[in-house]
């Protein structure tokens, strides 16, 4: 178990190094000069040159990358924002809780609603209800977040005036973004729950449970659902990563100050340290969640923990 965890941590590190390198190189290829953005078009070439030197931007790319990585490892420093001159980590941590709150809210919706719908449609396989749920799930997985988000704003804010169209902080402000963001994941979780339940439901031990005279609802929850859980945990874990990504889009649609909005603003302003830092940060979150999911298996499946 410990060995497994360490191995996973090592590969996680490799992934993060790869991500940072890729992002670094990609950003250096993007058009737009941060120095000119910072000083404005009117700055003299000398002033630009001086700033460029000061920031180390005229060193070879690999040297710049090395310096960046060294700062991260030695000083836990992701650099300084070009536009605000504050540490990147501070900027991210400022808004990260909002992103997490949004993603968690969406996740809770996806887990509760997705599992509930999935179980119902597995138990009533091929019924009208099952078909309706599956069609909804198909729509849910294929409709883009920003489209759903905009439709929801039009309906609930503009037309009905029930919910605020933007901002963050109150419960009312959380509802629409969380639902819009959670929609896709709900659909994915529902479909996985259904297929995993159907896989288990035909197995013999379910008949054994029924042959004991056990009530059907207990058979479904205690015997079937428990054994259908592993694939469901996997998608839930993967969805959490996806949700972090989706949260960025949602943040833009609903004007929520989160990592996504921070990143988009930074891209507009060619604030490379922020962009790099956020991508690396999100990648780290994503990988950690996946690791947590793997460790969770051990709790659910006695076979894994004994190995």
């Amino acid at each position, binding site marked *: 178990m410990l060995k497994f965890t360490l191995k996973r941590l090592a590969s996680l590190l490799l992934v993060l190094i790869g991500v940072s390198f890729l992002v670094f190189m990609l950003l250096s290829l993007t058009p737009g000069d941060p120095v000119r953005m910072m000083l404005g078009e009117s700055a003299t070439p000398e002033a630009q040159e001086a700033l460029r030197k000061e920031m180390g931007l005229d060193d070879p790319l690999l040297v710049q990358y090395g310096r960046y990585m060294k700062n991260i490892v030695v000083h836990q420093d992701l650099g300084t924002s070009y536009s605000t001159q504050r540490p990147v980590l501070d900027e991210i941590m400022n808004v990260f809780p909002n992103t997490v709150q949004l993603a968690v809210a969406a996740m809770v919706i996806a887990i509760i609603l997705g599992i509930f719908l999935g179980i119902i449609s597995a138990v009533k396989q091929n019924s009208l209800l099952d078909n309706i749920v599956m069609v909804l799930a198909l729509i849910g997985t294929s409709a883009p977040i920003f489209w759903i988000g905009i439709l929801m704003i039009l309906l609930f804010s503009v037309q009905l005036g029930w919910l605020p169209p933007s901002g963050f902080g109150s419960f009312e402000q959380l509802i629409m973004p969380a639902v819009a963001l959670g929609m896709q994941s709900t659909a994915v979780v529902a479909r996985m729950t259904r297929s995993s339940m159907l896989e288990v439901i035909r*197995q*013999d031990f379910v008949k054994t*449970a029924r*042959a*004991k005279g056990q009530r059907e609802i207990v058979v479904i929850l205690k015997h079937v659902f428990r*054994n259908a859980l592993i694939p469901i945990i996997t998608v839930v874990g993967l969805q959490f990563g996806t949700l972090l990504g989706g949260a960025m889009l949602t943040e833009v649609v609903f004007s929520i100050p989160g990592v996504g909005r921070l990143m988009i603003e930074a891209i507009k302003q060619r604030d490379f340290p922020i962009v790099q830092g956020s991508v690396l940060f999100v990648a780290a979150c994503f990988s950690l969640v996946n690791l947590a999911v793997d460790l969770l298996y051990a709790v*659910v499946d006695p*076979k894994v923990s004994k190995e």
Partner: protein
Amino acid sequence: MEKQNLLDIKNLSVEYKTEDGIVYAVNELNMEIGHKETLGFVGETGAGKTTTAMTIMGLLPTPPGKVTSGEILFDGRDMLKISDKERRGILGEEISIIFQDPMTSLNPSMKVGDQIVEMIRLHKTISKKDAMEEANKLLEMVGIRRERANDYPHQFSGGMKQRVVIAIALACQPKLIIADEPTTALDVTIQAQVMNLIKGFKETLGTSMILITHDLGIVAEICDKVAIMYAGQVVEYADVESIYMNPCHPYTKGLFNSIPKLDTEEEWLEEIHGLPPEPTERIEGCSFSPRCPNCMKICKHKKPGITYIDEKHYVRCFLYENQEVKTDE
């Protein structure tokens, strides 16, 4: 005949709706089991044995399965008509089942002890602790150390899993145990051990049993009665002695002839030619007629009814209709 049977199945028909058409799995099946009797239920694969067993327990998957006619009287109650609640009271408490494949018949994420406790606590109001103690005793009874109650099924071998399944089946001392090929999935060396275990309990507890098997040797050893099943029908039903001394139906004769004889070179003395009918087609006349060596003209057009050879021995075959006297000679 005078005293009431424990289980009485009359004219039972079951079909499955599948993409290839309707599968006629059980066709007008008749059989009965008295108290403390063991019935051997023999037939080729696909004959409908498991379907019959599941229907008795009310666990036939519907859809695709459907009971189209008949009644199943268990201790005077029609299992096809009782409420779900009443059935849940009977299952486990009065009828229990041992499935063919022990690898899959235990819940992989539950400790085996808990799986026995679940059975006990469903039918008895006792504390968790007492139920656990009972479960441990049951494990010891089937030859498993009590400490192993805390292990998960994957930590057991096939034979031991089947012992656990047997412990679950015995937990409430049911009146009837259905054992659906309880040893076919096990190693040959273990088969005999498990069979002896089953035999032992059947005798000490005095339960009735339906033993589904392909093994006529086991039938001779532990059964009181035999039902030979072919294409969803019991074609011959009799006491064990009667059927071994005087097999009547051509299919039964074929079965006995296909038992390997150790003292001859040939492995199969005489096998039954041809294949069982496609379960989706309905054969006009006797369902065994395409393979029957004694097939007559009438067999192709009419279905044979039940003919009693003697009081406890019936056969579905035209060879015996209107001429019981002749075969009794």
